[in-house]
């Protein structure tokens, strides 16, 4: 983190993006405590010098600037806000050390487990997606149980919102969105009554209500992310000059055609070549390269060692890039 620069004022600035759920946490914490701040909005495809200077390690948002110094990582920022403006209510963490430890445990659980698993469910296909879905179900089960334990089941923080509620904010706006795009239900009345009540309560908190990123923009963004799997197949077909017909699916109402051609996963994209289906985007790319091996360009190298290397880097990039997209 960058050192103090001469002449910087005693004001608070937050480097964020319009859609980052992590940055939203910092926004809520600042607003809840009534701390005035200036927003610096980033476009992560063209990172500003300010961002690179203040978060050279991760180059990510949010970054809080205070007294000319920078604090990175959303949960670390919330703890910093809590300690620096300790007299501003509400308390975001309990006073008792044991309860603080428990609170930190659950906040960390959200970041280490709950978010990665739902991300895996949203962005992957096949076996990996199945794993993401079942792990997410387990994580929501645990969160429901934890919430039920609280005597006044208002918030994870007790009667007022706290760091765990803030950490889980994405459940309020992003989970319904993911449910719609994927055509699955993550939360339901039967298994998660407490969480659903909590979600309603969270969405009624003024600071939360007024800070959401624009919904239609979010829908467009996340739909495009999910469809990226389909996009790479389109690129491959176009690169090779292969004519094709597009069949658009509404994943909330899966067609008989899709269910017939991808009975195992019931997901897109599916390539149908001479009536035979090929599923899973990276598998489809390899298939295209082999079935149309005479059409340049080669998508994969010929040499086995280089092919292994290319597959390694495709997977590596896949995992890295997709996860980074979640943070923007």
């Amino acid at each position: 983190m960058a050192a103090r620069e001469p002449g910087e004022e005693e004001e608070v600035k937050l480097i964020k993006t319009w859609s980052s759920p992590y940055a939203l946490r910092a926004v809520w914490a600042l607003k809840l405590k009534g701390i005035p701040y200036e927003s610096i909005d980033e476009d992560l495809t063209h990172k500003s010098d300010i961002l690179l200077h203040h978060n050279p390690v991760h180059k990510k948002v949010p970054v809080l600037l205070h007294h000319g110094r920078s604090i990175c990582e959303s949960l670390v920022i919330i703890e910093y806000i809590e300690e620096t403006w300790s007299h501003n209510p509400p308390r975001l963490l309990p006073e008792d050390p044991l309860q603080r430890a428990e609170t930190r445990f659950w906040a960390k659980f959200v970041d280490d487990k709950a978010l990665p698993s739902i991300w895996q469910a949203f962005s992957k296909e096949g076996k990996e997606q199945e794993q993401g879905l079942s792990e997410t179900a387990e994580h929501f089960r645990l969160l429901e149980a934890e919430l039920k334990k609280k005597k006044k089941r208002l918030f994870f923080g007790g009667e007022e919102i706290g760091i765990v509620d803030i950490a889980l904010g994405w459940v309020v706006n992003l989970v319904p969105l993911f449910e719609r795009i994927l055509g699955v239900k993550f939360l339901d009345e039967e298994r998660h009554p407490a969480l659903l009540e909590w979600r309603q309560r969270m969405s009624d908190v003024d600071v939360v209500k007024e800070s959401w990123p624009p919904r239609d923009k979010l829908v467009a963004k996340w739909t495009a992310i999910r469809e990226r799997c389909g996009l790479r197949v389109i690129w491959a077909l176009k690169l090779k000059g292969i004519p094709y017909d597009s069949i658009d699916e509404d994943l909330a109402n899966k067609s008989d055609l899709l269910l017939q051609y991808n009975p195992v996963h019931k997901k897109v994209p599916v390539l149908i070549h001479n009536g035979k289906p090929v599923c899973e985007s990276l598998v489809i790319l390899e298939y295209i390269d082999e079935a149309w091996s005479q059409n340049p360009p080669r998508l994969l190298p010929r040499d086995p060692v280089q092919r292994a290397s290319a597959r390694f880097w495709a997977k590596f990039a896949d995992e890295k890039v997709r996860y980074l997209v979640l943070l923007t």
Partner: protein
Amino acid sequence: MASNNGDVKLIGAWASPYVMRPRIALNVKSVEYEFLQEQFGSKSELLLKSNPVHKKIPVLLHNGKPICESSIIVEYIDEVWSSGPSILPSDPYDRAVARFWAAYLDEKWFPNVRAAPMAATEEAKNAAVEQLKEGLALLEGAYGEKDFFGGEKIGFIDIAFGSMLAWLRALQVMLGGVKLLDEEKTPGLCKWAAKFSADPAVKDVLPETEKIIEFAKLLVAKIKAAAASS
């Protein structure tokens, strides 16, 4: 056993760097505790009961109440035994810096320590080693003029990073002498490593490199056997 500290037990294992963190922290505070070591390859009833969510070590049991996750345990120790030398700095900004580096080590850096010996291809191994070197360069940059990251005495970052020293040294040997801690590139860290290892709170906790190498071989064999049979 000092009874006004309450009943203090730690569920863990000698080789785990995550377990070393609370052990060092308890030593810093001169708190005696019972070290309940898990058997390699199996999880005790007590562990499963105390950490039902993750079923992992370390778990601190303070007067029967469990606290999980190594960094969270260290913060807890610092807050409960506040009369002892402090582990986290007092200034909120410095605390944020300390927490930032601890999170970085756990999320970005340590996974490569585990990935490197297990790597299936040369490429994967080199990628992991590169990430490790990058991380060490960053830490070298964060290391200041004083003896420790925490200043005159060991602090939160020292404990978070130093707990990985034995594994880091073992890795250098296992990878055929690759220099991760380098006199030329990371002179500060080399100096720090020696000081940290010699600190009274650390000395008996950090295992010898040879012991870790032996243990790592067992672990790698076990993981490979499990993968082969699945």
